[in-house]
């Protein structure tokens, strides 16, 4: 993951809403046209980020593992 220059990771685990959304939005604005991977551990953050990304026309892929969610957001 660290070797992939076209992928940025937002680690918002342990962050309360709306921080994960704010961080994801900043990443989307800053790294246009790149895949953004967001790691979170709250279902509320998952819903909020998914809604925000979809509203802005992004594709989003959600994986759940051990209570954590990995969201892959692409154009």
């Amino acid at each position, binding site marked *: 993951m660290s070797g992939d220059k076209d992928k940025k990771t937002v680690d918002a685990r342990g962050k309360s809403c709306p921080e994960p959304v704010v961080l994801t939005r900043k*990443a989307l604005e800053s790294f246009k046209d790149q895949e953004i991977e967001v790691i979170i551990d709250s279902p509320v953050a998952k819903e909020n980020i998914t809604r925000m990304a979809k509203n802005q026309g992004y594709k989003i892929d959600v994986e759940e593992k051990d209570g954590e969610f990995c969201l892959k957001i692409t154009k």
Partner: protein
Amino acid sequence: MNEKRLIALSGAVIGFLGVLLVYLGNAANYGICVACFIRDIAGGLGLHRAEVVQYLRPEVAGFILGAFLIALFMGEFRARGGSSPLIRFIIGFIVIVGALVFLGCPLRMVLRLAAGDLNALLGLAGFIAGIYLGIFFLRKGFSLGRYHNLSSSNGYVLPVLAVILLILVAVKPAFIFFSESGPGSMYPPIVVSLIAGAIIGLLVQRSRLCMAGGIRDLILIKDPHLFYGTLSLFVLALVGNLAFGYFDLGFVDQPIAHNDGLWNFIGMLVVGLGSILLGGCPLRQIIMGSEGDSDAGITFLGMLTGAAFMHNFGLAASPDGVPQNGQIATVLALIALLAIAFKNVEVGITSKPSKSVASGIKK
């Protein structure tokens, strides 16, 4: 049920219950008020001696137990904490200072508006101003830090407290206070309040309804989702008030309200800013606390303490207006809130996209 329907349904049911609880016994425009209910609980426990506002409101125990049980059932109960607990306690305290100067939490503000109380318009303006201010700090990188997983016992504290409050209000031991007049003396049977509270707790846990979050998301990410809940709450409460004949448009002689516009504005500005820094309105704090978020649980205790202080020292507003010392307390609370907000803006935000854009983003 899809998310949009759920949030609209939650708002509608809560708006209607807000009016129905008045019909069933709560004081006028006092069907649901998280700040007032917490204040009444502080009074019932004897933490303040304002005789007209002492009652261990079973609605609050209902909020907690409804949200706790549904979170447990849906697998969303998780004990966590450690995100600046002491600062959250203080912000909870401050939010109640603002709410008891306006005379209501954001939810009661919407219910007051829906009953024609135009003083709540000034409150709404202050609330939106406070939310704008909060968003300014969020954009600057405000954060109270990360929470961590805790042992599950931490998550059971608030539900256990709710059960204890229920036992006390049902058994009525001599050391628990019950108002004999005023809003604290007006309430439906315990079981009615408890069931109404539990329905509200369940719905808010599932829909994530939040009075502060609705306006925040509208401004911050242009997402009206949560605001639909606020809107449907207002509409159903309005319909309910018209149907029950409670609607009375005007500024003067509104139930449990004063018409000092400036302090209605400043009080709700404090509530708006504080709610954004906490990540949710007072009701949302109780719901998160019930899902195992011990930081939100501590915020609840901060609100309880704040309510006790406001009435112990005669700082809270009444229909006569806001006492001078209450005005001083509100200004001091706002200064403290701003200091907390400035102090917790995380450094490390850069405008250069080539580096990390915030502390939580790795390249």
